[in-house]
């Protein structure tokens, strides 16, 4: 007891100014009010945050990513939550974990530091972004659901059936935004912080394969069909090329996890992903 008390006092007297590490979870397309339960699940969040020196230093963002990425309800909301987390918790070493379109909204902030006075503060306190299944080059699936035949109907009639976020994630739309407003893709200026991609490369849906059941088998069935709209390397929603389109590749699922990660499984504690993200903190 004495020894522990002495050690405690010694530690307090001699402690260096450690940085405060935090982690933020940024969801994908959709308007979230309870992303902790609805998007990530508590088991995923709670597993990852065990890697923090102080496990309470985490935040799960809830914003409306049905909007265009620059919208006040999207990047504005994300900036508000991250800025508040950073300033109220004294975070100066923030790891941001994004999923899917959340990577695009985060990349908007990183690429446009002069859009909002909060953005530079956020950028300057981020260690790096771990972008899981990022929609950096968009997806053909967004184009599939947005289009119709203009000669038989006014094109505008289809817009009301899909969100601005889906419209934005069509490949030619993302190409336009990547060429002028987003950084980090090929031929563009680099992002100001590391943007490390985790890439899902396949959908396991065989009924006899236990790997198909993590996160819920029902999600794998539809993803197996949607894979046919995509390249041979895809997570069922995004081509691997899109997931790797901005920043740098951290790893493909088969390089580090115990099985392939579908687009749904990459936001669940599946195949050891949560452990990898935890250890990265």
């Amino acid at each position, binding site marked *: 007891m004495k020894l522990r008390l002495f050690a405690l006092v010694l530690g307090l007297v001699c402690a260096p100014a450690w940085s405060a590490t935090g982690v933020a979870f940024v969801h994908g397309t959709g308007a979230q009010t309870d992303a902790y339960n609805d998007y990530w699940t508590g088991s995923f969040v709670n597993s990852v945050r065990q890697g923090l020196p102080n496990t309470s230093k985490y935040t799960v963002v809830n914003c409306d990513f049905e909007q*265009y990425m*620059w*919208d006040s309800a999207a990047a504005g909301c994300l900036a508000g939550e991250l800025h508040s987390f950073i300033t109220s918790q004294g975070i100066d070493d923030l790891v941001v974990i994004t999923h*899917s379109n959340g990577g695009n909204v985060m990349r908007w902030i990183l690429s446009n*530091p*002069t*859009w*909002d*006075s909060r*953005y*530079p503060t956020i*950028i300057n306190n981020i260690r790096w972004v771990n972008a899981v299944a990022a929609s950096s080059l968009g997806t053909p*699936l967004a*184009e*599939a*659901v*947005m*289009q*119709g*035949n*203009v*000669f*038989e*109907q*006014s*094109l*505008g*009639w*289809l*817009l009301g*059936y*899909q969100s*601005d976020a*889906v*419209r934005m994630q*069509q490949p*030619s*739309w993302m*190409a*336009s935004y990547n*060429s*002028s407003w987003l*950084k980090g893709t090929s*031929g563009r*200026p*680099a992002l*100001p912080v590391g943007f490390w991609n985790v890439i899902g490369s396949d959908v396991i849906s065989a009924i006899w394969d236990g790997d198909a059941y993590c996160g819920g088998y*029902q*999600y794998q*069935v*539809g*993803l197996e*069909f*949607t894979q*046919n*709209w995509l390249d041979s390397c895809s997570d*069922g*929603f995004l081509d691997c090329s899109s997931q790797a389109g901005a920043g740098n590749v951290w790893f493909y699922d088969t390089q580090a996890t115990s099985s392939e990660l579908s*687009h*749904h499984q990459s936001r669940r504690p599946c195949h050891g992903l949560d452990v990898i993200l935890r250890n990265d903190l």
Partner: protein
Amino acid sequence: MHTLIRYTAGLLLVISVTAGAQTVELLALEPGDLRPESLVTADRATAADSLNQTAETIRFTQPIGTDPAAAGAEGLKPYLAESRQYWTDANPADLEAGVELPLSAPGALVRITPLEATGKTSLDLQQLELTLDGRLLKPKRDLELITTGTQLRAASLNVTPGTIAFRIRESAGAGLLTVRSTADTDSRGDNPLVVHVFEPDSPVVARVSLPKQDYLAGETLHFGLALTDGDRVFEADSIQAVITDPSAQRTWDLSATENGRALEGALPATDAGHPAGLWEAQIYVEGRIDGKQVRRDIPVAFAVTLPTARLNGQAAPTGDNGLNIGLGVEVAQAGRYQVSGTLYGSDSTGQSVPIARAETAAWLDPGNGELSLDFADSLLEDFSGPWTLRDLRLADQGRLGLLEYRGRAVTISLD
């Protein structure tokens, strides 16, 4: 292609100003640069409200680091769109009569989506008759990957639950697919439908090439078009093309030229549409290749900006911490404008390398204003002149539009 934005010989853009220890020279425009020939004032056309009403001037400078590739490449990027797919709209009456879908290769994916989630239209494979060149297809024998809307929604594909999708087995081949509803009239509903056909295994692809994706209102569009199997380029029987504004409510025609190898049209001179959203070219191509009818739809997006500001040719040193470059901006309509550029200098070997990228945004009112790019002394310690500013962009930040681009923009010398 002649566009609105070509530099004009003799246009005075070179101004040298010596002030203090710096001489800043704005260089003449070069091929591939972008600049409005004239500005649109509010009395001609009022620009849309800025999406960003922030009045505060915000500056940010980002060191490039040791990898020159981190500076990015100069120039406006071209874009190539490819398609092996098409869409067709239908209604329940069309489905009752039979919707014809040409398939040019085996293994086609077909998705039929009723657009209203609460509509009566029910898509049940048991109530759909599928024939291929008149031959009846049997689901168990000829289809695979039969998937419902509910399953697709679980895969993050936002379609209505009543959607049905399937793949034609390779063994069933290709030809004219007819999809006909056998449901009775009372249960067919009145729900509009979209039918989407994707042929992943077809060698025939339609390609549309854009020289860039950033245009100014009034520019002439010239896109390349090809229907090809990689070895052969085919002549299309039919080419229809329009451009749409971001609302998708208004369209303008594109004309097929150069024997169907190009599409041309003009953007409205004083209309860029709402800044939230992009313009699109919608291109519909049909042809007959190796005896099979081929349909391809190619949607491709691009940005259009109302020219409300441009660099006015003034370039001067400002500040006294490192290199500070003030760029004059002629503003026709108020908005939040942004300038960005990459500073190059010489490293210890004398090689020109990128050092840092700076950007500044501020609200500017009509008249002549200034935006400066700042590179602090601490960034320049390991470098020397000659200094150049490259990849210079002036953007209407609040309306998400690129106004002016210069690959090689400014030289700075320290006296």
